[in-house]
């Protein structure tokens, strides 16, 4: 197991390096001068003059060739130094430390919400296969997965915040301001997980061993809890893992709409300012989170599935 984790961590490192490199050069080839963007984002149009430009360029070594800047950044990153944000003039790590807990809070709320909704929904849908509840459930998941999240966010703000005045429009003032962004963020994941849970349950229900359980004289609810759920769960865990990745990506947009002070907002700001160290920091963090979730999913999978646990190397 430890060998496996070490091997996986090495792959994660390579992936992170590739992500960082790609991001670095993508930011560089986007049109616009970095120094101008920094000055513009800090002091507006009036701040952009040749004097200031010169100072910014020399301060952040922007006048050196890109590859030199890149190698320096990579070497520092390997040492754990993510550099200083151009825009905020503060260490990237410090900025991330401020924002990460908020993103985790939002992401966790969305994931928990969607699991709490989707798993029972999927089970009920499967147990009522081709009957009213199943059709209703499928229609519901189709609807919520077809609405773009930014549109839902706006509609929710209009209804819940502006018209009914039940919840705050945005920002982070107490737990109630978590509700709207979490609901919006969880929708895509809820739909995907519900559908997966349903099809996974249906698949299990058709298996021979369920027939055998019935032949043993087990009660239907015992068959569901002792046999069906256990067998339907592993694919769900994979889907949840994948969906958490999407939630991380979706958070970038949702955080902006709801002015949620998370990593997503930070990333968008950094992109606008061509704040390369900040962008790199955010992207690396998101990529790292994604890779870790996949690793955890695989480990849970290995613990759950006896075939992987006892089946030997090739299983």
């Amino acid at each position: 197991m430890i060998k496996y984790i070490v091997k996986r961590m090495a792959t994660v490192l390579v992936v992170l390096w590739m992500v960082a490199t790609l991001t670095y050069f993508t930011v560089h080839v986007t049109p616009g001068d970095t120094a101008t963007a920094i000055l513009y984002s800090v002091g507006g149009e009036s701040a952009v003059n040749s004097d200031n430009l010169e100072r910014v360029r020399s301060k952040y070594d922007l006048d050196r060739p890109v590859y030199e800047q890149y190698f320096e950044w990579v070497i520092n990153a390997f040492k754990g130094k993510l550099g200083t944000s151009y825009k905020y003039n503060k260490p990237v790590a410090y900025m991330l430390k401020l924002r990460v807990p908020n993103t985790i809070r939002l992401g966790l709320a969305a994931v928990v919400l969607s699991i709490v909704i989707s798993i029972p929904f999927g089970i009920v849908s499967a147990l009522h296969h081709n009957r009213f509840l199943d059709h209703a459930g499928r229609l519901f998941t189709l609807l919520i997965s077809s609405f773009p999240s930014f549109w839902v966010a706006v509609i929710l703000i209009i209804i819940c915040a502006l018209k009914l005045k039940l919840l705050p429009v945005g920002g982070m003032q107490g737990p109630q301001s978590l509700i709207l962004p979490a609901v919006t963020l969880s929708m895509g994941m809820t739909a995907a997980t519900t559908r997966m849970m349903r099809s996974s349950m249906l698949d299990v229900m058709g298996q021979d061993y369920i027939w055998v359980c019935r032949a043993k004289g087990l009660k239907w609810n015992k068959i569901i809890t002792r046999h069906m759920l256990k067998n339907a769960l592993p694919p769900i865990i994979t889907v949840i893992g994948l969906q958490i990745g999407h939630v991380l990506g979706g958070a970038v947009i949702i955080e902006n709409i709801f002015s949620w002070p998370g990593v997503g907002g930070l990333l968008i700001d950094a992109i606008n300012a061509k704040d390369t160290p900040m962008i790199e920091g955010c992207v690396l963090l998101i990529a790292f989170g994604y890779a870790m979730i996949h690793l955890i999913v695989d480990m849970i999978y290995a613990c759950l599935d006896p075939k992987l646990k006892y089946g030997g190397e090739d299983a």
Partner: protein
Amino acid sequence: MEKLLEIKNLDVAFLMGNEHVPVLNQISFDIYENEVLAIVGETGCGKSVTGSAILHLLPENAVTDGEIYYKNQEILKLSEEKFRKFRGREIASVPQSPSTSLDPMMVVGEQVAECVTGGYRQKKADRENIQTRIWDIFSHLKLPGERKICHAYPCQLSGGMSQRVLISMGVIAEPRLLIVDEPTKAVDWILRKEVVNVLRQMKDEMECGMMLITHDFGAASQIADRIGVMYCGQMVEIGKADEILNKPKHPYTKGLIDALPSRGFHVMEGFMPSFSELSAGCRFAPRCSRCLERCRRHIPEMYEDGNGRQVRCFLFEESGVAYRSPCIEEAVFNA
């Protein structure tokens, strides 16, 4: 001997779209206490459907008609909740395909114990009791390392071991009737011999009726007291095992026995027709070498010779009287 199970004119049809496809037609037979009845026939002739019908475990699109009596109590029309109490305890089954019949996520000991506990938590003493019984049965069935196997997952067992775990599941609650479905289907020659031995041993030791569903005449002949031969959803011949084997009457039974490697390997011509395109007369007529003109137009009845031997063939009309009412197959399904 007391009748344990009595099936009278059992019809089963599957609803496919708007059509009823008849699968079982006028199946009638009895199983007595302490008797092994083998149901033999080609794949797809409706043997397993008969077993599932007894257990109320047909798919949702199945329509059944007829009567099934278990210890003189009608069970076919019982509600799911009432019949559930029969499953496992009174009528148990040993399913076919051992590789897919065990829950891959549960240790096998637990799966066997479930047959007794119903999945409910037991007191410590009861748990230990059940555990000992499982060890007993496992060692009886010669499962190596019976204590360790209780904690093994199905993926850690070989086909033969899984088969024996399934047999243990069938017998642990000491049912009165055991339906064993294709025990020799997915096993190699050596294992087949072992399975046959286990079943013979069970027959001697357990005092219960057994319905052995198989396409393996050899296995049937070694275990069964009586053999019923099914063709295309109908029982075509039923009688004592040695009589069926040595003096088959129905041309189909004859064909099956002649096709055995030990009897010359003379393969029958033709194939079993599909259930949705059955002809008007005897279902075996298109393949029958002794087919008469009337065979193509009328369905023969079950004729009995007085010694419990029944044959569904016009050739034996004179030898006995009609055993059951004539089967007019359209009557049920077109109603």
